[in-house]
């Protein structure tokens, strides 16, 4: 429990909707150390973003935390007071959202948005002069490898390309991330070449500043060169956790195995099969193993109880009855 920058422990989150309760997160645990780079992979809808929003405490109004704790730098995030939370937001942790177009206010100039963020992150008590704030904003845009930063400050989001918007979001995060950076699928909405550039930029920034990172991705390729520890998530459950190399060379959970097999290889082997079935509905979900309905190895007890995370050594944990207990 000690020494870690961020500890998410057994998090349960549900959403209240018209039809009932969406029990999305079912006991998610993550830990991120200082300067550690951690990745989370999983399909759409598995709860990755929900977990991240919980860490940043920007969940929707209809979200309920039904259990678990989040400890960040010694603070109990879920119970933290407004002022303290805001201080952390301004100086310590920050998040890059999945879709940079949606993450920028469409009716304000970049300059407005960035300068307001910068002003509160750096000059928390004193009142800065406008020129100082603007200079700092330009610096940040430059660190995000944006050309013509002055022109960008005076532009509106819709006037920039997708890649530029993503860099602007990165620049904004740099203002307020001194310890932890959460990147939610930073390249998903972009062209592959641009995505590659963005990932390189992120890597460089993270190294330079010694930040801890949580990188969420669909793309196995992107995480491979970036993170040292990987989590695999499925339907609100953390199914496997391992150092990157270990996970790729020795995937244990049936889901992870299928996931890795689903990546087409240039060296041949034919077109991958994919996994039959779909993510279960969070409305009608039970306490059974959530992958049970799609698992080749599923036994009786898999459909009754969810497996805890079994430690198989080497920093490798699997939530599957194949590797322990019953």
């Amino acid at each position, binding site marked *: 429990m000690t020494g870690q920058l961020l500890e998410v422990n057994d998090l349960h989150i549900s959403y209240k909707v018209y039809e009932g309760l969406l029990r999305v997160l079912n006991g998610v645990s993550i830990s991120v150390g200082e300067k550690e780079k951690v990745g989370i992979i999983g399909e759409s809808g598995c709860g990755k973003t929900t977990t991240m*929003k919980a860490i*940043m405490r*920007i969940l*929707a*109004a209809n979200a309920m935390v039904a259990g678990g704790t989040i400890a960040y730098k010694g603070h109990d995030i879920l119970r933290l007071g407004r002022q303290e939370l*805001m*201080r*952390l*937001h*301004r*100086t310590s942790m*920050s*998040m890059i*959202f*999945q*879709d940079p177009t*949606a*993450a*920028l*206010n*469409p*009716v*304000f100039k970049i300059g407005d*948005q960035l300068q*307001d*963020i910068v002003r*509160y*992150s750096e000059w928390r008590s004193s009142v800065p002069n406008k020129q100082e704030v603007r200079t700092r904003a330009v610096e940040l845009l430059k660190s995000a490898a944006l050309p013509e930063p002055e022109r960008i400050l005076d*532009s*509106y989001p*819709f*006037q*920039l*390309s997708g890649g530029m918007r993503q860099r602007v*979001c990165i620049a*904004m*995060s740099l*203002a*307020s991330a001194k310890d932890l950076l959460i990147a939610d699928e930073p390249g998903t909405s972009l062209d592959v070449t641009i995505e590659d550039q963005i990932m390189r930029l992120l890597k460089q920034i993270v190294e330079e500043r010694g930040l801890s990172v949580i990188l969420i991705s669909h793309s196995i390729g992107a995480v491979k060169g970036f993170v040292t520890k990987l989590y695999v998530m499925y339907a609100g459950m953390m199914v496997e956790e391992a150092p990157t190399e270990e996970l790729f060379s020795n995937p244990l959970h049936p889901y992870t195995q299928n996931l890795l097999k689903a990546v087409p290889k240039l060296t041949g082997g034919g077109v991958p099969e994919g996994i039959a079935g779909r993510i279960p509905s969070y409305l009608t979900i039970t306490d059974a193993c959530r992958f049970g309905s799609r698992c080749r190895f599923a036994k009786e007890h898999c459909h009754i109880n969810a497996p805890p995370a079994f430690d198989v050594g080497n920093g490798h944990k699997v939530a599957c009855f194949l590797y322990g207990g019953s």
Partner: protein
Amino acid sequence: MRMSTFILKRLSYTVFVLFGLSILIFVIARVLPGDPARLALGPRAPDWAVENLRQQLHLNEPLYIQYFYWVSDAARGSLGESLVTRRDVLTDVQEFLPATLELITLSALLVVGLAIPIGMVAGRRANSWFDNLVRVLSYVGVAVPAFVAAIVFLLVFGFMLNIAPSIGRISPNIAAPPTVTGFITIDSLISGNITAFFDAVVHLILPALALALGPIAQEARITRSSVVENLNKDYILSTVSHGVPERLLTLKYLLRPSMIPTVSVMGLDIAALIANAFLVELIFNWPGVSRYGITAMLRKDLNAIVAVVMIAGIIFAIANIVVDLIVAYLDPRIRLVERAA
């Protein structure tokens, strides 16, 4: 496109539309069954009087000649003679228009000044008692016609509680300020007569509120749902996650995008204030051009009717253009789309 081009285009289009409107009104007035002259003078008037009036109104000439007469008169600054007041309609309009404009302006200010803040607060505190109250009241408010609101206000505040006076623009015992703009409120401020100013405001408040009630309810509801929707948008969550203080977030980053859907509807409603003014002025006996218009309509005063409808059209068009400009200002995507990088 640039702002000036935009305005120019709209103005010329509006002029075209208004011309079309004048023809429409003209045609309707002349073509529909019933002899306007007979209707105006009543069934007991002698035939020769009716015939005289027909001559006077050029009713025996072909339609386009009649229209020509009307247009050329208007160009020379005359809108024809009113059957009721026996003066040039233009003079009547000049006398009564300021009162209506004053009323509508105050109503518009009330709508803008009340609907948006109420909607914002309700949206921020969704599902609180305040929000629920706002939602219920706005449902009802939208369903209340302006004339019902006017009567209820008159009854409750005018008679029962005796708070606000019910007739006229200013109390009889207070001297009206010298006319500069025709707006008693502004004129009294100009001449430094504070008593008159407050008196005028008190007389204005009931009819203005009656007019504004429907739009306030509607716009508050739209603002509220817009706020609730935007609160979950990524760009707001992102701003929160960067630690921007709440005040700034609400008053700057939440307000503007939430206002945009409201302002468009608000434009239609404010422009329509002129329509409801017809009923409200009647009830409060407000000496404005709308009440003049109703009287003209009841008395079949053709020239006056045409003039009043045209004025309503002009006010409506101007209000719409102003609103479009405001929306373009608020939403840069509309302004700058053609210049997108």
